[in-house]
């Protein structure tokens, strides 16, 4: 049996690779520090790279993450029974009938409102048109109640644009890329909406609570005319959100005597954690007389769509 020399021992290749050096993990650290310092000094430099990365990385990953759920929805749709579909069709027909009646009432109200505003010499009338957008992803950070929609600057989306769903105000756009728009919902603690009580006209500011199911109205004195069940609508003050859209319903009003103000909890009207389709609102100045003249006739199938559609309007879901 021969004994190996020390020189020969050193030539033997190690079976296991050396463990990674801790210092190697400092390379990303340096890049992180550069990025953070860059953001602190020049935040505007990050807008374009972020938009690019959102379009080319975040959007595909969101699509992959959503794919199993979408596949499940598709399968569910395929296997839905004929009886169920007939039942759903009948329910939709009934709903359509009720909504058409409401639209007819609304048309009269719009005409009357226009005439009153004319009498008051209102300087402008505003007509809203919408683009339908689909939910792409929710913010993975549970502290940020934000959603990403599949419409971007290519569709005319702009920062500050109000967003609605079929039940009420959702929020506004805070960032756009070419194909996506990030929306800050009204429930986020960084958001505040000027509102008023539809019944009494009392104005206030509704602040997000950080929870999807409640927003708060602060700084209302105990003598304020507000009751549980009151409908809260946007007041239009501040110019960001248009007036008259439902924001929520007053859930509870607390006053313990130790505070100078009421604590009003509002349940948002918008289905913030359920809706998949949203409306991006575009505002166009319109001639009030023209609106009065184009008020829908009874039996009109789609009277709610304005007569003069802007080029960006797309009523069909993507």
């Amino acid at each position, binding site marked *: 049996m021969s004994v190996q020399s020390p020189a020969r021992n050193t030539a033997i290749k190690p079976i296991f*690779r*050396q*463990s*990674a*050096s*801790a210092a*190697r*993990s*400092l*390379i*990303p*650290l340096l*890049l*992180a*520090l550069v*990025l*953070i310092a860059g*953001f*602190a000094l020049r*935040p505007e430099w*990050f807008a374009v*790279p*972020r938009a690019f*990365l*959102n379009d080319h*990385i*975040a959007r595909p*990953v*969101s699509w*992959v*993450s*959503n794919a199993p*759920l979408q596949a499940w929805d598709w399968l569910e749709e395929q296997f839905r029974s004929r009886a169920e579909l007939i039942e759903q069709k009948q329910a939709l027909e009934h709903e359509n009938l009720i909504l058409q009646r409401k639209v007819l009432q609304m048309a009269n109200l719009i005409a009357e409102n226009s005439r009153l505003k004319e009498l008051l010499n209102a300087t402008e009338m505003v007509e809203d048109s919408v683009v339908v957008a689909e939910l792409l*992803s*929710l*913010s*993975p*950070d*549970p*502290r*940020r*109640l*934000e959603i*990403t929609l599949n419409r971007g600057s290519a569709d005319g989306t702009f920062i500050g644009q109000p967003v609605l769903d079929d039940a009420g105000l959702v929020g506004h756009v805070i*960032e756009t890329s070419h194909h996506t728009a*990030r929306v800050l919902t009204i429930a986020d*603690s*960084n958001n505040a909406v000027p509102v008023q009580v539809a019944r009494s006209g009392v104005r206030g500011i509704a602040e997000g609570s*950080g*929870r*999807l199911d409640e927003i708060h109205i602060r700084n209302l004195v105990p003598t304020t005319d507000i009751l549980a069940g009151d409908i809260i609508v946007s007041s239009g003050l501040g110019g960001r959100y248009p007036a008259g859209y439902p924001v929520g319903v007053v859930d509870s009003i607390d006053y313990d005597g130790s505070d100078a103000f009421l604590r009003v909890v509002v349940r948002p009207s918008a289905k913030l*954690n359920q809706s998949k389709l949203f409306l991006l609102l575009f505002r166009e100045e319109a001639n009030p007389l023209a609106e009065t003249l184009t008020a829908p006739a009874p039996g009109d199938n789609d009277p709610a769509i304005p007569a003069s559609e802007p080029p960006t309007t797309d009523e069909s879901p993507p």
Partner: protein
Amino acid sequence: MKTALLVRLSLLAALIWQYWPMDPLWRLWLPDLLLMVCLYWLLRTPHFIGSWTLLGLGLLRDILDQGNMLGPHLLAISLTAYAALLLRPNFVRWNLGRQWLSACGLMLCYLLCCHWAQLLDASYANKPLLSQQWLTGVLLWPLFYPLMRWGEEATSPIRSAS
């Protein structure tokens, strides 16, 4: 080879889990599985998680989290990885209790680094620390670690050869 594949698959699965569409209330209690998987491989077989992997993971999380700034996750993961690699020589010799404590410390390090870096962005100024995520991560680690170890041993070349 099999272990390398397992590392990649586990990271991919954790990434999909992390960004699975979910109610924010549930997400608040969701453990940071991507961090846990990353820590496991850093502490067990660090040569499979190189600096480029860390760089990619950190940047990807910054992009997918859709905050305004890039860097907080990258900073947090690189500092945590540095601490993990310093701890590693002793970690493999420690008992499970001490290993659990060090994993808790590393997860806390990640959480705090990320939170403090995010505070540079004004939109995070009034956001609370995600302590619930850390808590669930801490509670799940004693289950997660043996499960991962079982997977690792099942695919290790030595065991396969025997």
